[in-house]
C-alpha cells in the first residue's frame, strides 16, 4: 500500500519524488534544493557579517570590501578590558537563576494541573495563558516603578523574577503536555512498590518527562539570556548590566565601537543558536500552547 501510494500521496504536493529511479535528482529537486540553500544562506548572512566584522583588523574597518584582507582576533582579547567579563557573569546569573526558578515553580504547577481536577484549575490555566500574551515591554513602566519602590534597581534578583515570571507560561504548557502523556498507571505502580506520591514523581514521572523539562529549561535560559528592554530599564549601573545592555552600550553618542560590539555579539549569539537547535522541534508546540496537534 505505502509503496504504491507513496509517489502520489507523500509526494503529492506535485510529482516531487526526490529522485528518479536511476538515482539522478530531477530538475525540480535541484531547483528546490538550490532555492532552499540560497534562502538558508540569506538567513545566516547577517550573523556571518557579524563574525567577519569582529575579525577585521581595526585598520581595515573602514575599507569598503566584502571580505577583509586580514583576520585578527585582537577584538576578542581586548574585549575583556571593557569589563565584558562582569557583564557575562551577570547574564549567566540572571539566565541561570530564572531557569532554576521556572523549574521550581512551573514543575509542581504543571504536574498538579495535568493530574488533578480542582476548583480554580481553569482560572489558573487562563491566568497562565494571559501571562504568555503579555510582554514585559508592555508593562515596562509598571515594572520599573514597582522595583524602584522595592529599592531593587540594579538587582539581579529583580531580573531573575521578571524573566522567570514572563517565561513560566511556556514551561507550564510544555510540562503539562508531557505529564499528561505519561500513564498514571506507571506512577501508581511505583506507589504500590512503596514510594510515596512525591517519590513516584521524582523516580518515575520526572525522568520520563525529561525531554519536556530540558526544552522548558533551555527555552527559559535563552529568553532570559537575550532579554534587553527590562534589563535596559532596571540595570542602570554599567557593572550590573547583562550582555545585551552592555553590547547596546557600544553604540556611543558620537562613535560606535563596531568591532567590540560584534565580538561581544558573537560570544552572546553563537552558543544560543546552537542550544536552540537542540530543542528546535519542541519549541513550536510549547509556544502555541497545544492548539496545533
Amino acid at each position, binding site marked *: 500500500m505505502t509503496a504504491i*501510494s507513496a509517489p*502520489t500521496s507523500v509526494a503529492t504536493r506535485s510529482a516531487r519524488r526526490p529522485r528518479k529511479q536511476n538515482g539522478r535528482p530531477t530538475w525540480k529537486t535541484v531547483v528546490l534544493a538550490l532555492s532552499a540553500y540560497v534562502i538558508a544562506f540569506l538567513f545566516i548572512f547577517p550573523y556571518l557579517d557579524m563574525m567577519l566584522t569582529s575579525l577585521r583588523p581595526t585598520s581595515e574597518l573602514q575599507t569598503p570590501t566584502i571580505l577583509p584582507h586580514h583576520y585578527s582576533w585582537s577584538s576578542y582579547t581586548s574585549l575583556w578590558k571593557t569589563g565584558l567579563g562582569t557583564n557575562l557573569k551577570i547574564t549567566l546569573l540572571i539566565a541561570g537563576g530564572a531557569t532554576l526558578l521556572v523549574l521550581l515553580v512551573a514543575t509542581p504547577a504543571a504536574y498538579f494541573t495535568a493530574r488533578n481536577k480542582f476548583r480554580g484549575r481553569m482560572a489558573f*490555566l487562563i491566568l497562565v495563558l494571559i501571562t504568555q500574551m503579555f510582554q514585559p515591554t508592555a508593562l515596562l513602566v509598571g515594572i520599573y516603578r514597582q522595583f524602584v519602590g522595592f529599592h531593587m534597581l540594579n538587582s539581579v534578583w529583580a531580573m531573575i523574577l521578571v524573566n522567570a515570571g*514572563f517565561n513560566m507560561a511556556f514551561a507550564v504548557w510544555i510540562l503539562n503536555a508531557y505529564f499528561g502523556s505519561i500513564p498514571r498507571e506507571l506512577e501508581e505502580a511505583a506507589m504500590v512498590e512503596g514510594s510515596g506520591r512525591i517519590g513516584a514523581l521524582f523516580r518515575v514521572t520526572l525522568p520520563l518527562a525529561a525531554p519536556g523539562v530540558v526544552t522548558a529549561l533551555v527555552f527559559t535560559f535563552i529568553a532570559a539570556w537575550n532579554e534587553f528592554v527590562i534589563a535596559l530599564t532596571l540595570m542602570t549601573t554599567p557593572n550590573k548590566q547583562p550582555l545585551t545592555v552592555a553590547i547596546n552600550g557600544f553604540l556611543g553618542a558620537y562613535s560606535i565601537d563596531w568591532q567590540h560590539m560584534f565580538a561581544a555579539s558573537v560570544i552572546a549569539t553563537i552558543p*544560543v543558536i546552537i542550544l536552540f537547535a537542540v530543542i528546535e522541534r519542541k519549541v513550536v508546540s510549547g*509556544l502555541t500552547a497545544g492548539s496545533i496537534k
Partner: protein
Amino acid sequence: MSNLTAAQRAAGDRVSGRPIPGRRRGSLARRAAHRAQPLLWIGPAIGLICFVVLWPVYVMVRTSFQKVSSFGEIKGSAGWSNFTNLFHELAFKGVVERTVIWVVAVVGITMVVSLALAQLFNQRFPGRRVTRWALIAPWAASVLMTALVFKWMLHSGYGLINILLHDVGLLNDLNSASADPLGKEATAMPWLIFVAIFVSLPFTTYAILAGLSTIPGEVYEAARVDGSGKWHTYRTITLPLLRPALTVATLINVMNVFNSFPIIWAMTHGGPGYSTTTTTVYMYILKGKDLGESAAMSVVNFGLVIIIVALFLRISRWKSEVE
C-alpha cells in the same frame, strides 16, 4: 479552534473518568487540608504571576493618574491630565497611525512569506535538515544583535549591503546621503519593517510546518483523484486545514510586533524625528520626560493589546463554531 479552547479540551480530557479527590468524606480538618492542597502545588506559580505580571499592571494604571516629577517623586493626583497631555502631543496621532502600519505590514508580509517558505521547506531535498537549522538563527539570536548587525550592514560608508549595492551599480556614492537609508524618513521605516519580518519569519515558518505535518497524505490523494489542480488543492484543502496554526501564529506575531522595541531602538531610536516611533518606543521616550504620561501611554498600549487578543480569540472561535 482557538488557542484557549484547545488547551482546555486537552486538559479536560486528561482528567476525565477519575474521581474528584475533594468529594471524599473525611473530617473537617482533612477536608480543609484537601482544599488547600492545590495551593501548595500551584501557589508558587500564582505568586510569581501576581508579583511580576499583575502587580505591575496595577502600578502602571495607578501611575498613569499620578503627577510624577522628573526625579520620580509623586506629586499627587493628576486626574486625567496625563492622558489629555498625551493625546495633545503633536507626535501622538502619527505615532498611533505608524504603529498600525507597522503591525499590519510586518505581520501580514511575515504570514504570506512564511506560507511560501513552509511550502518549500516541507519538500524533500538533500540537506533539508541543515537548511532548516539555518532558518532558526534569527529566532534564536537576540533581536537586539540582529538589529545591530543590520544597522552596521546599512552603514553609509562601509556597510555590506551598501557595498553590494554599490558594486552592482544600484548605488552611486558610498558615504553620501543616499547611502544612509536609516537617516531618511522615506527609507528608515521600510528597512525596520524588513528587519522585523526577518526575525519573525523563523517562528512563523516553523509553526506552519508543524501545521502542515498534521495534514494526512490521504487528503491530498483524494484531491488528486478528484482531479483538483495544485493551486486549487492548496486553497481549498491546505489553507483551511492550516487555520489553527495560522491563527495562533498570527496572534503571537501581533503581540511580538506590537511590543517590539529593540529593533527600532537600536537602529533609529525612533528617528529621524519621530518618523519611526511606534507607541511602544514612544512610551520609552516619554519615560525619560514624564513618567505619568509614559504610564498613560502604556495603559493605552495595554488596552489595545487586550482588545487585539479578545477580538482575535473571538473571531477564531466564532469561525470554528460556524463550520
